[in-house]
């Protein structure tokens, strides 16, 4: 004979109601708050930017891939002027005109994780086209210390003392001498009960 599922017998419904109430309040606050559209991350970033000349030459400029490299070719009267843009093919190269000038631009998709890495170690000046972030080097060091401390703390808390032995992470000693403090609540022995008055 089974019984239907029941809620475990807790101290009433008040805790659950409190949690739900908090949720309702937070949702109401979030829904009603005026947050604008997301800025988002840039999809691409420029890696190479070469000036090709005047903007009027745009129809005569094109991207050519040959010999394992990408070139920007401008057709002039005297011949083709080619500017090497990258030493590999398959890159995203375009001709862009802005501000009355013509540029050959190679852009790559931005790497978020690379940017995170640069930011974390404080190498943002070595990263040319990273997404903006703050310098986290100090915090990185602090977290390292905290983790080490947590490890040591966990090991210390796990240290166990029984009658006559101390059990720790790497050692188990026998017959510990008298004056040890029972940090974990003590053992069954009555050796040190304070004596008689």
């Amino acid at each position, binding site marked *: 004979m089974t019984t239907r599922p029941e809620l475990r017998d807790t101290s009433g419904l008040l805790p659950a109601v409190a949690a739900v109430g908090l949720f309702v309040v937070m949702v109401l606050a979030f*829904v009603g708050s005026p*947050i604008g559209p997301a800025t988002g991350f*840039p999809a691409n970033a420029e890696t190479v930017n070469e000036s090709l000349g005047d903007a009027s030459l745009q129809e005569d400029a094109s991207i050519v891939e040959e010999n394992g490299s990408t070139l920007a070719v401008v057709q002039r009267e005297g011949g083709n002027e080619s500017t090497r843009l990258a030493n590999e093919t398959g890159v995203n190269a375009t001709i862009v005109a802005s501000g009355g000038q013509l540029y050959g631009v190679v852009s790559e998709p931005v790497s978020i994780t690379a940017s*995170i890495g640069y930011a*974390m170690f404080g190498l943002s000046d070595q990263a040319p086209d990273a997404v903006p972030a703050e310098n986290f080097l100090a915090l990185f060091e602090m977290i390292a210390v*905290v983790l080490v401390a947590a490890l040591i703390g966990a090991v210390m808390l796990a240290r*166990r003392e029984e009658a006559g032995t101390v059990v720790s992470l790497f050692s188990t000693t026998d017959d510990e001498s008298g004056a040890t403090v029972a940090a974990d609540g003590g053992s069954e022995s009555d050796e040190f009960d304070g004596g008689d008055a």
Partner: protein
Amino acid sequence: MAVDVTYYLVLSAGLFCIGLAGILTRKNALMFLMSVELMLNAANINFVAFSLQWGNLTGQTFALFTMALAAAEVAIGIGIILVLYRNFDDVDVTDATSMRW
């Protein structure tokens, strides 16, 4: 089309409150600890959502650090539960009531 950040916030609020409900109602100390982890993760979601909102990677990086912190906290927490067990013979948080009036 990006997801509106409000949805992320609602999600994080929901996770937080689920974790809170766990803290308020669970008796087992390990379940207590798991609920705490849940709340931390809710906060993480919040960080990442706002990182996208402002276009700044600080949020995502900080979320990584928060994870590390959570790990450290769990290490100590497990140690405390161990000592609790040794003293009270059970991991029931409602049993350990020596420091009361």
